[in-house]
Structure formats: C-alpha cells, structure tokens
C-alpha cells in the first residue's frame, strides 16, 4: 500500500485505515467461494472475524435478514462455533494472513469476557481483542450489558486482567448517552473504542403484516445509520483519549474520509461488503485520491479534522 495511507492503531501497523466490521466478512469462506487468493491480497488492513462466544451458538430463528430503505436489518444472534473451534480450527488456517488479526468476543456475563480473553491471550496469531458488548440480537449479555456503564466497565476490567493484547470495546448506539459508556470502557482499561454496532429496529413482512424477522426485532446497519455513526464517533473521540474505530454505513471513499475527519482512527466496513466483498481494496485506493485532492498528506492529519477550529 502507498505511503500516504499507512497508519497505526495502537501497536498495530496498518497499510491503510480500512478494516472489516465483525460478522460481515468471512475470510475462510470467501477464500473458497471467490476462488481468489485473499490470504495474499487481503483487501482490509486488519481482519476481524465474526464474534465468538465460550459455547457454540446456533443463532436466532430465520428469517434473519430484511432490507430497508438504504439499510439492512439482521437478527443473526451471534451464531458461531464457539471459541474452542475458533482457536483450534480457524486460527491455524489464518497463520499466513498478512495483516493484524482482531478477535471479537462476547459473553452472557461480564466474567465471560475475562474467560474468553484469557484463552486468546495464548494465541500468537491474535493481535488485538474486541469486546462485543453491543449485539442487539441476543437476550442475555450483549446489549443488556453494553447499556450499563457499570457492567461495561466490569466486563472491560475482566478482559484487561486477562490479556496484554490491544483491547477494543465495541459499543451500542441504543443508549441514552453513549459517551458515558465510552468513558466506562476506558476507565475499565480499554485501549480503543469501536462504534457503532447496529441500531435497534424492526420490519413487517409486507404481505403478511407480521414481524419479518424470526427474532421479531433486529439490528439496522448500512447507509441509513451513517448519521448515527458519525455522531457517535464525533462525540466519543472528543470525550476520550483513546483511538476510535468508526463504523456504521460507510460505503464510499467519501464516507471513509468523513469518518476519519469526525474522529475515527480506523474505519470498518460492514454491510457495504455485501455489495462487494472486495470493496475495501477499492475504497483504500480512492481514499488516497480524495486525500490528495483535499491536500491531506497523511491519515494522521485527517483524523479529527472536523474538530479543529
């Protein structure tokens, strides 16, 4: 990658500031299906696999997806094969991945985050750990935990005690005051805040006029929520001293530019990857052009530009 795009997230060196959002890109699957050598030419500057939990989870009843105006509702419910399968089966296959790996974990209780983080601390391939305390699609833990500053701090503390890795806490926008949660996470020892997870929403089947999702409610992602994401990034990056990973609707290089200017150090692409799983590679290239046009010589110069007088 070109010099001007080089950046860093704490100790992680990144070729450019675009990574993937957990749960929206599966390298091992994509490698097979796309028959591209993604391990060699990885489109993102870091890889965040789908959130894993202590025990395997089947996920929620289908239907799990519904498209809305410029948005997508999902109610996957953290379907995953459990942290053991992740460590024993997936991580070895990711040994050759040429970019940092950020493992995402979730639990039902605050101490689950400590247990997961401890297991991952043994894994050399894991460069950073993201605590997903913000999934709107699971009953226990997830949201309930991520809406409460006290529990947010506690979950972060448990993880902090269990790992020396770069520690990211991913927050939900479905709260009255997201900055207080960001502060709680930083107080608990977070090195970085990641925002936003999906926005609470719901859809009806247009013909039956009954809930369109098996789980009834779901999480809204995509361009529709970009204004919500920009606000969260702007407010939090003004409030805490750690770097912010910004996500929520970013789809174009102009969006990436804006997320960085709003205060994100790195931008994650989620739903837009469903329009093309390799989109991020193009975004990084286009970002360089936009930066040159606007006279930004480095990503660092751009980060938080909207806050400057």
């Amino acid at each position: 990658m070109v010099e001007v795009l080089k950046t860093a997230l704490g100790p992680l060196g990144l070729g450019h500031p675009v990574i993937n959002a957990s749960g929206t890109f599966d390298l091992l699957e994509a490698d097979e299906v796309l028959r591209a050598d993604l391990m060699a030419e990885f489109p993102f500057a870091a890889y965040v696999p789908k959130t894993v939990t202590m025990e395997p989870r089947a996920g929620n009843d289908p239907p799990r997806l519904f498209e809305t105006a410029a948005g997508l509702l999902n109610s996957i419910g953290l379907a995953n094969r459990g942290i053991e399968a992740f460590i024993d089966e997936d991580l070895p296959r990711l040994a050759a991945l040429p970019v940092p790996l950020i493992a995402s974990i979730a639990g039902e209780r605050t101490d689950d985050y400590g247990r997961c983080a401890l297991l991952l601390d043994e894994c050399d391939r894991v460069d950073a750990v993201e605590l997903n305390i913000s999934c709107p699609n699971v009953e226990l833990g997830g949201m309930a935990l991520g809406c409460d500053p006290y529990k947010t701090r506690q979950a972060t503390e448990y993880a902090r005690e269990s790992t020396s890795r770069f520690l990211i806490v991913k927050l939900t926008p479905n709260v009255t005051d997201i900055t207080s949660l960001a502060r709680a996470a930083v107080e608990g020892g977070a090195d970085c805040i990641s925002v936003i997870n999906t926005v609470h929403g719901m859809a009806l089947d247009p013909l039956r006029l009954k809930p369109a999702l098996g789980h009834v409610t779901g999480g809204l992602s995509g361009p529709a929520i970009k204004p919500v994401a920009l606000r969260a990034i702007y407010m939090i990056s003004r409030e805490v001293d750690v770097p912010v990973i910004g996500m929520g609707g970013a789809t174009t290089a102009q969006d990436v530019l804006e997320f960085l200017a709003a205060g994100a150090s790195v931008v994650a692409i989620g739903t837009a990857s469903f329009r093309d799983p390799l989109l991020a590679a193009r975004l990084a290239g286009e970002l360089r052009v936009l930066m040159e046009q606007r006279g930004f010589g480095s990503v660092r110069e751009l980060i938080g530009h909207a806050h400057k007088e």
Partner: protein
Amino acid sequence: MGAPGRAEAAYSACRVIESRPVGAYRLVSFIAREMAAGARPGQFLMVRRSGPALDPLLPRPMSIHDVESDLVKVLIDPVGKGTLNLAAAGVGDQFNVLGPLGNGFNLEGDGPALLAGGGIGAAPLAYLARQLMDRGREVTCLLGFRSRAQAIAAELFRGVDVHVSTEDGSVGRQGLVSELLSGCIAGLGPGARQAELFACGPDAMLRAVSATALECGVRSQVSVDTHMACGVGACQGCVVETVQGYRRACSEGPVFAAADLKW
C-alpha cells in the same frame, strides 16, 4: 488504484444485451463468459444494477435460468424493490454479478427426473431440464402458476415435456403443481421408486411436493428461497433449519435433500 494486479472487486460488471417480458416475468440476458462456462443447474448469482444507488442496497439472488455460449440468462418476477429494479434494466445497462454460487442440483442419479416449479421457481428448471436430458435422463417438468400471465413462462421450456397448472385454471389444469405431481407419479407405476424429484418454489409448495413424493417413495432435492445479504457464506443470514442444525442457503445450499429439511 491499489497495488498492480490486485483484485478490487469480486463482482463483475456485465452488459445487458436483451431484456424482454415473458408474461408477468422478465427475461434478461447479459454477457458473462466465465460464469456461463462454469455454471451448473441450480446455482445462482448475486445481481445488482451497477452504480452508486443505495436503495435497493444489496444484490439479489437470481437463479441461472439458462446459459447460451457466453450469455447468462435470468428470469425475474418483479415483486419487490430489488426485483423491480433489476427488471427495469434496459439493453446496454450493466449488472454487477457474482457467481455462480451455491451447490446446484445433484445430477448424478439415472432414474426418471420429475421437475416441479412453483411460480418463479420455474426459473432454474429450464437449464436443469436440458442438462438432465443431455445426460440421457427422462425428464418431466411440472409447472404451477397463479394465472395465465405467469404461465407464459412455460414457453421457455422448448423441447421439454412440460405440464402446466394454474390456480385459476386459465392455462393447463386448474389447481396446484402438487396435484399434477400425484398424477404424474401414479403414471410412472412401479418405476416411481427409481424416480427423483427436483423442485424449486415457495416453501409451502416445496413442502407439498416433497411430501407427495415421499409418500410414493420418491426422493426430492429442493432449492429454497431465503433472503440473502452476502451470498458467500459470511453473514449467516440465509439459514434454513435442517436435521443437522441451521445451514446457509447460499454456501451450503440452495439445494437441499428434502429429507434433511425441518419445516
């Protein structure tokens, strides 16, 4: 703009060279040499109109209706914003296409093949029928439609032994395709046990035809319709419940043995 030689898109831009109504449906053909070469019956494509538009946001799964030299054809039933948008494409427009995706039908048997389509579920059966016949299998194709406007799609099955039913009786037999199927299996007599059913359509229709088939000892492969986001096994959004648990329709389907589905 990235490093030289680096792939910057998984989707290919494919030019539409034909777009014409087939009754209530629309047949759209586009140039996609590699996809045409690699496609198997029952596989599908993720398709989106090229461009920056954000609504519709995502590609839609479309069965490969047919393949002709370097052309791939899809048959579209414009029921919602995604399919309406695709059906509105004119000659010269571009589709962003990913595929072929999914497992496709298993063509390995050698007994008589009974194909059953419900509505737009007829789409993948044309290519399937041709490939089965090329393999020397005896093919009977049963298509159920709402009414005449949909049933016109039966014309796309030239050279295939097609039987049509419509719910309003405007074309073919009045009733459901599952009723056609009972008659057809009865006609096979004891040979029915060697027969195999290949079905595509709405869930209720798939349940009905595979139940009918099961009663007569006929195995079924069914292609299911679920909402998809990624199409490549990444999002876990398109799952159906099977005896082995949830399975992704995009990467582990869309064709499943009816016996494996819990519905």
